[in-house]
């Protein structure tokens, strides 16, 4: 009953949807028709981006309303959300995950580290940016990027 009262008092938490983001749409995303299953791979991130991704799928930003949903297996996924510079230990698992995603697929590199290794460029354990390991379709800059930026990137993928 307590929960029921809270549900009634709080009502809708989600912010109103911003206008549809500008920018080119990756060609492989055109066949998704408003539905994108997302598999997140942490390739060596400091977990800053993970917190923001958690925010993007939380009630306030509510990425699910645009048809994006986190899934448990790359076989179910259309989108790989990769964070962090790719460490040596994660390079091969990232390639395997990429191979495990059925065509058509989209890779989104989230955060500065994923784009160009950011702070950790040239560090001993880093194998390279995400684009050095797997082909990247979209990039979300920021250290860490705002949830709104992540949601905007996902909206370009789902087209909603």
């Amino acid at each position, binding site marked *: 009953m307590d929960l029921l009262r809270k549900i009634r008092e709080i009502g809708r938490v989600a912010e109103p949807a911003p206008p549809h983001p500008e920018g080119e749409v990756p060609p492989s995303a055109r066949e998704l028709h408003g539905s994108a299953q997302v598999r997140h791979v942490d390739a060596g991130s400091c977990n800053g981006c993970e917190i923001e991704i958690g925010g993007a799928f939380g009630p306030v930003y509510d990425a699910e309303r645009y048809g994006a949903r986190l899934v448990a*297996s790359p*076989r179910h996924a259309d989108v790989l959300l990769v964070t962090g510079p790719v460490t040596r230990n994660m390079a091969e698992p990232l390639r*395997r995950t990429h191979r495990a995603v059925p065509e058509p697929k989209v890779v989104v590199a989230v955060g500065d580290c994923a784009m160009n290794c950011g702070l950790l460029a040239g560090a001993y354990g880093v194998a390279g940016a995400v684009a050095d390991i797997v082909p990247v379709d979209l990039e979300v800059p920021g250290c860490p990027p705002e949830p709104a930026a992540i949601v905007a990137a996902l909206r370009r993928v789902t087209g909603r």
Partner: protein
Amino acid sequence: MNAIAPALAAASGLAAAGSAAGLVSPERLRPALVGVCTAGVGAAGLAAGGAALGGQRWSASLPDLLPLAGVHLALDALSGLFTAVSGGVIVVAAVYGIGYSRQGPAGRGVQAVLPLFAWTLVMVPAGAAVSTFLLLWELMAASSLLLVVAEHRKRAAVREAGVWYAVMTHLGLVCLLIALVLFAARAGGETFPALRAASDTLSPAVRGTVFVLALAGFGSKADMVPLHAWLPRAYPEAPSHVSALMSAAMANLGAYGLIRTAFDLLGGGPRWWGLLAVALGAVTAVYGIVQAAVATDLKCLLAYSTSENLGLVLIGIGAALLFDAGGNCALAALALVAALLHVVNHAAFKALLFGAAGSVVRATGTRDLDALGGLRPRMPVTTALFAVGALGAIALPPGNGFISEWLLLQSLIHGLAAPGVATAVMLPVAIAAIALSAGLAAAAFVKALGVGFFARPRSAAAARAHESPPTMLAGAGLSAAACVALALVPGVLADGLGRAAAAAGLRGAGPTGGAGAAGGGPIGGGELRLRLTELSGRLAPLWIAAALVAAVAAVLLLVRALARGPRRTGAPLWACGAGAPTARMEYTATSFAEPLQRVFDDVLAPEQDVDVTPVRESAYLVERVRYQHRVPDRIEHRLYQPLLRLLARAGRAGRRLADGSVHRYLGYGFTTLVAVLLALVVTR
């Protein structure tokens, strides 16, 4: 034209020829000759039984064949059903055995006994006098014992299994002997017609004693809990075609004996007979299948599943007794027909499953499910055959087991009208037991098929497996065909089953011809549907199967038409980004059954043992941890082991009495004589 007599004569002749061939033929030809003769015995049994099911009757009395009692034989529809089932299983096992024996038990003795065992399986239902029946029964038990210990030189466990089987089967025989001899003595005659005529004149106490002893004696053959202790040992250790014969044919004869005694000879009884049988059946079904669900030995799993299925048959028999006591003949006939149909179905799928399991054992040398796996690409036909059998065993449509369980449930569901609070409590419990055993059977056979045959091999032996020779596949294929036929058109058996139930003495069970073209048996409705004649309810197994096939085809075509993506491709298994998963990462039978084992912790009482060995320098540094886990048969553990210990202690105590002193023995004789004389003086 009565076909029964020539068929039984042919069976006897072929059995003799087969035994002779087993003794004298050269080793290279032996399995084939014996197999062909044994298959002939089976075919003759099938013909005789089929004729009896079709309505023919036959009886013969051969007074000179045996001293004192003579031999009385008769075949009616009830015995015909069991003769036919035995015959069918024998054909399957014999054809299968040709290939199986080449590299297995091809010895002279085993091959000579096999046709004899087959012959007794065909003939036991034909016994129509106490002496004849018991003689055939004991012949069957003894010949099966010889076959169980066929491989005793290879494995020590076979010898232990043989001892257990010998003792248990003879304890059962003692029960039967007391029951039937007591019955015959009170009835004043030992032929079945004499017993039948005199049964009404017996006192309730005698009838009750006969029933309980017969239930115990026949129940021990039909794997009834708690008399099942021999089965998880004997079935797995016997050669596989012998396991098939024992499980799919011999165990049925326990049910036959019970039906013959309780319904035909005793003419039904008070309500507590039925309640007792239903309760024992429910316990047997659930206990058997719980053990099967946690078993990791493939043949042990099948053995316990036999226990489960015979438990279901026992529920049907008990329900029939119960309804008969309440005066509800139609319902009693339905319950009995359901039990009989389940006997047929179980025989079909269990012969198939033991055959397929035998192929696996032969190809890999192991029965341990935890070491199997990956057999599908290596033994595709065997895998497909096992899948057909498993579909029958899990009692889901379109399998054959579903139909008999559906009938059984229908009879129980409609049985609440039968009066009595005990009935009202027992029937829901029986239904719950059937449902639970069906659910657990699904888990057990998903485990057997999924862990045993699918995925990747868990041991080098499984990786080296190869397909079996054609005769083995043909034997198992025959029973697969029987399973499919029973699953799709069970209606062809409706009249025969009705006749069998009528032959058991249930009034209003047989086809009277008065109630429409389909006959007046408890089930009818032509070949395509099963319809309950007295109750509202029908089942169309063929249509359900056809609808499923059509739906699968439609969905497949629709998806093909709608799919727009790239062509199907192969990819390595997803192992969370790690490399290809190894066989050690697969779920095993033990891990598959672990949740069930935890749920049924109180019933199974598993034993686990953790042994930690620290290094010598420090108690905190561990050198080795050994973990052992075992699920023992609890009934054996709690009931038989104390009993055996008690017997052993009594034996040791008795040894003190017999110390070899002649004086003492003379003293015993003198004391006994005086005691007897004193007793005579006091009582006279």
